[in-house]
């Protein structure tokens, strides 16, 4: 699998797939799973990332999502964007079906 958290990554966010329908979700600053990457909380530094992942995985997390993990994001002007092609595609939808996935609603 193309991997997520690059060693030495400065900025990271937490993502998972929602249990009921597999939808890609992100952990947000107000402590819930949201569908849009733009609402994801961004952790700066390794300690902040660990703390973020811990918050995203309370005792009952399995009742809501599958397999939360950290992935690297990059600063892009005043915004952030996923570092890998994989996470870019997860955040948007299939590049071969622009009518499907999150990008369809955008």
């Amino acid at each position, binding site marked *: *699998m*193309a991997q997520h958290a*690059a060693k030495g990554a400065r900025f990271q966010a937490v993502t998972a*797939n929602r*249990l*009921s*329908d*597999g*939808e*890609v979700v992100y952990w947000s600053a107000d402590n819930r799973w949201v569908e849009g990457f733009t609402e994801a909380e961004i952790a700066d530094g390794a300690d902040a990332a660990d703390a973020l992942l811990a918050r995203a995985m309370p005792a*009952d997390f*399995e*009742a809501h999502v*599958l*397999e939360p993990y950290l992935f*690297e994001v990059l600063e892009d002007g005043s915004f952030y964007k996923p*570092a*890998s*092609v*994989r996470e870019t*595609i*997860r955040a948007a*939808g*299939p*590049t*071969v*079906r622009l009518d*499907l*996935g999150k990008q369809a609603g955008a």
Partner: protein
Amino acid sequence: MYRYDEFDHQLVADRVSQFRGQVERRVSGALTEDQFKPLRLMNGVYLQLHAYMLRVAIPYGTLRSEQMRMLAHIARKYDRGYSHFTTRQNIQYNWPALDKIPDLLDELATVEMHAIQTSGNCIRNVTSDQYAGAIADEVEDPRIISEIIRQWSTFHPEFTYLPRKFKIAVTGHENDRAAIKLHDIGIVVKQNSAGEIGYEVHVGGGQGRTPFVAKKMTDFVPKEKLLAYLEAVMRVYNMLGRRDNSYKARIKILVHETGQEEMQRLVEAEFAKIDASDMLTVPQEEIDRISAYFAPPAFETLPAESETFTQAQAADADVARFVRANVVAHKQAGYAIVNISLKPIGGVPGDATDTQMDVIADLAENHSLDEVRVTHEQNLVLPHVKLDDVKAVYDALAAHELATANLGLISDQIACPGLDYCNLANARSIPLAQEISERFADLDRQYDIGELKIKISGCINACGHHHVGHIGILGVDKKGTEFYQISLGGAADENAAIGQITGRAFTEEDIVDAIETVVTTYTDLRADGERFIDTYNRLGMAPFKERLYD
């Protein structure tokens, strides 16, 4: 065609209601993902990048029209209006919601379909020749023994926890269209000098991380003894197959490490024990019962030539091209095999919309004695079309973007879902297939290039068969960026071979140019009548490498 008996109906119904309970317990939080994952995988439910994916079995690639219609209905109701035909003659849905899957499976069961044996370390859905029962010079319809194997292997207690998944393919024709030598077990139906039907058995083929062409284990097992022989292979595998390392757990590794002769000896010894007990000898009545399901359909007696057919080609160059590329001679006078390419120029290989599937179901019902076939090259087939009807079938297909006349040509590529959908991918496969097909869109150029099989996988698991493409393309990941490695000289037919890597990988920007370089190297150097694979086999890698890396 095979119809469920009561036992099958009950088994599938029980399995769906059991899964419904499991899904409810997972959604309520009573089951953890670790507990649930093996259960969902046993029912064909994977997690991809954007959603769950459901893989539905199409045993030996044969469908009735009502089944195709149901697949269309499911695409419409539970998915997003399309689905994907795979290299294992199965169909995948990319967006079903977990809590709706039990309902979906209930609907599927009404047409005798299910998702059993589509994942997990069991004997997977048996695959076969898409021209079964339609092509001339077939020794016997390969679906007969495929069905016998299916019945023996489904839920066989010894085979539920194999070291790894296990795939079997069968061909009844000397031209192998089922890639049997790339399966854990590949079977060729044979007739001996006494006129008896039996089977040549190859073991230990496979793709993935360490590809191997299967080794021949025996020239001839009599028909009634085949299950005993296969059971012997499975027992040797169950005893000696490695369970410590999933990368080394496939039978191909066991055969490779044990050697062909020693493996033959082990299997023969086990076979002798099983055979002595006679337990697995298939009774003649049972063979007859299953053979009856695959009795030839009600062909009409027709003249070998059709004036309508000849005139349609003369009148319309597009029809003539379609016939030339996609229509194959039938064993029955007055009939033809019509291939439906799911590779429109710039399209997604193997995808079909719900409307297209409905159109194909109607064509099967009205013009192909109710049958559709799925090919491992991700196309569909109407196996029994009257020559008189080919033009009407062509018109209906053309009206729904289903008449691309490119079968076996450079734009008829295999591509796995890759990084657009797949959780394990390193790189995208589909956009590359699209760009290559756009680059070579001109059909006349494609006919000039001739038979050329490009196969693309988004990672080393090789779902897109890249190892056995005449030109294979493998997506690799370098620090989060996509790269593509080319291999040449692979083949998936009766002359199966694993391709050789050309050298360093290409960037996304350069890969299509590199493919064009390979193709022009071939067209520059080919001798009269040589296909790409012939030229490669004559000249080897050197001239291609030279042009690629200068």
